[in-house]
C-alpha cells in the first residue's frame, strides 16, 4: 500500500518536471524571445556537455564544494561556540540576539563589496562571505535550541550528579542537537548563497565564476546551465545530506516517528 502511494507520488513529480521542460521548449519554439536570451533545454544541456568535455565543469564543481566545505566547517565552529555562550548566558543572548537578527536581514550578497574592500580579489574574501552569511543563523539556532531543552533533562543530569562544568558537553549540546543540526542546515544554505555570490566576482574557478564567464561571453545557455547545476548540488546536499542526518537525529531523540 505504502510503496504504491510512494510510486504514485514519484510519478506525479516526474510528470511535473516533464511538463516544465515541455513548457520551456514550447516557449522557445514559439520564438517570442530571441534565441540568444532564451535558449532551449536541448541547447543548455549541450552547452553543459561541452563545458564538461572541455574540462571546465568538474574542476569548478570541485573548487566550489571544497570552498563551501572548508568555509562551512569554520563557520560552524564559530557559530556553535557563540551560540553555546548565548544559550547559557542570558545577558550575552540579549546582546547578540538583536545583532544577529539584524545581520540576518542582510542579503548574503551584500557581504561581497565589503569583502572586496578588505581582502581584494583573494580567496580569503570568499571564506569571509561564507562565514558572515552563515554564522548568525547557526548561532541563533544553537542558542534557541539550548533555551528550549526540556527542563527534565537538566534536572535528571543534576540529580545524577553532573557538575556544572560537565553540563555543556554531557547534556546541553547533545540535548539541543536536533535544533543545532537544523541550524547547521540553514547555515549551509546561506553560506552556499553567499559563497556563490562571492565567486561571481572574486574567483578564477568555481560555479560562480562559470556563471560570470557565461555573462561576459553573452552565453545564455552557459548561464542557465550553471544555474541548473548549482541548484542540483544545493538540493542534493540540503535534502540528502543534511536532510537525512536531521531526520535520523529527530527520530532518535523521539521528536519524530520512524517513517512518519
Amino acid at each position: 500500500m505504502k510503496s504504491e502511494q510512494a510510486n504514485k507520488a514519484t510519478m506525479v513529480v516526474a510528470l511535473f518536471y516533464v511538463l516544465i521542460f515541455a513548457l520551456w521548449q514550447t516557449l522557445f519554439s514559439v520564438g517570442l524571445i530571441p534565441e540568444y536570451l532564451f535558449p532551449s533545454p536541448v541547447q543548455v544541456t549541450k552547452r553543459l556537455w561541452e563545458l564538461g568535455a572541455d574540462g571546465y565543469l568538474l574542476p569548478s564543481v570541485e573548487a566550489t564544494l571544497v570552498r563551501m566545505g572548508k568555509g562551512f566547517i569554520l563557520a560552524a565552529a564559530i557559530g556553535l561556540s557563540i551560540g553555546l555562550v548565548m544559550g547559557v548566558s542570558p545577558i550575552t543572548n540579549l546582546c547578540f540576539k538583536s545583532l544577529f537578527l539584524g545581520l540576518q536581514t542582510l542579503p548574503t550578497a551584500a557581504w561581497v563589496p565589503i569583502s572586496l574592500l578588505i581582502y581584494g580579489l583573494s580567496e580569503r574574501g570568499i571564506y569571509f562571505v561564507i562565514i558572515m552569511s552563515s554564522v548568525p543563523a547557526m548561532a541563533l539556532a544553537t542558542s534557541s535550541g539550548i533555551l528550549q531543552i526540556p527542563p527534565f533533562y537538566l534536572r535528571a543530569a543534576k540529580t545524577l550528579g553532573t557538575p556544572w562544568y560537565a553540563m555543556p558537553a554531557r547534556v546541553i549540546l547533545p540535548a539541543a542537537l536536533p535544533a543545532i543540526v537544523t541550524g547547521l542546515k540553514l547555515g549551509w544554505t546561506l553560506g552556499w548563497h553567499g559563497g556563490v555570490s562571492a565567486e561571481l566576482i572574486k574567483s578564477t574557478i568555481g560555479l560562480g565564476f562559470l556563471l560570470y564567464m557565461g555573462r561576459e561571453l553573452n552565453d545564455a545557455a552557459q548561464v542557465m546551465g550553471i544555474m541548473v547545476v548549482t541548484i542540483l548540488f544545493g538540493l542534493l546536499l540540503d535534502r540528502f545530506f543534511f536532510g537525512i542526518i536531521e531526520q535520523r537525529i529527530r527520530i532518535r531523540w523521539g521528536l519524530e516517528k520512524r517513517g512518519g
Partner: protein
Amino acid sequence: MEFGNRTKTQAPLPQNASAEPSRAKLLQLTNVSKTFQSATQAVEALAPSNLEIEEGEFVVFFGPSGCGKSTLLDIIAGFETPTTGEVLFEGSPVTMPGSDRLMMFQEHTLFPWLNVVRNVMYGLKHKREFRFRLRKQRETARSWLKMIGLEEFEKSLVHELSGGMKQRVALARALAPDPKVLLVDEPFPALDALVRTKLYADLQDILVRTGKTIISVTHDPREAACLADRVLVFTPRPGRVQKEIRVDLPRPRDINDQEVGEYAGRIMEELENPPDEK
C-alpha cells in the same frame, strides 16, 4: 513476616551509637516550609513541617495535587530551597542536587543520545571510584540491567524501547550510582496497569534486596499502601502533613491484595475526613 519489620535490611549501627538506639536518622527536616512568590500573590505551597526519615525506610507522600508533596520531594532533592527551616541529610545541610539523593521523574528522562547501557553508566561517571574507569562503569551498569531483566537491550536506543522498559531502565540508571535515598516522583502514571504492577514488584524487590531508603510521591492510595512502610497523608491549602499511617503488611505485597485495599481505604479516609475538622 520477616519482611514486615525488615531486620535483614537494617543499616549497621555505628559502634558508639548510644543516643540512637534503633536506626540511624538519614534525613531530618525541621520547620521546613515553602512559599512561592508570584507577581500578584504569595502562595504557601508547604506549611512549616517536621519530618525524620530513617535508613532503609520506604516512605510514601500521599495526597491530592497541590498538597505540597512534590515540593517537599524537590526540597529534599535540592532542586528547591526551603523558605524557612533546615534540611539535614546525614547531618549536613542540603544545598544542591546530587546523586546521594537521586530523583526519578514522572517522565523517564533517559538521554536519547546515549544507548541503554550508557544511560545506566551516566550517573557513575561523576563518582570518584568510577571516574574514567569505563570498564568498571560498564560492568556495574550491566549488573543493574540484569537485575531489571533488560540485559539483552544494553545496545538498544531509547526510542526503540516500550514505555515500561524505559521506566525500568530509568530505575536502573537511578540505582547504579548507589544513592543513599531514592526519590520517586510518581513515575508510573503514564503506564498501563499490567506494566505498573510489574514495576511495583521490581521496586519492592529492590527495596528488600538492597535495603535502600525510598521516598515516593503518589496520589493513588493503593499504590501508597502497596509500597510504603509509612504513609504521610498530605492535605492542600496550605500543603501540610495531616496524618501518618504505618503499613504493617509483609512484603512482597500485591497491589490487588485485599489487605492492601483495606489500608488504601484507611488512607483515603484520612484525606476525606481530616480528624481536626470532625
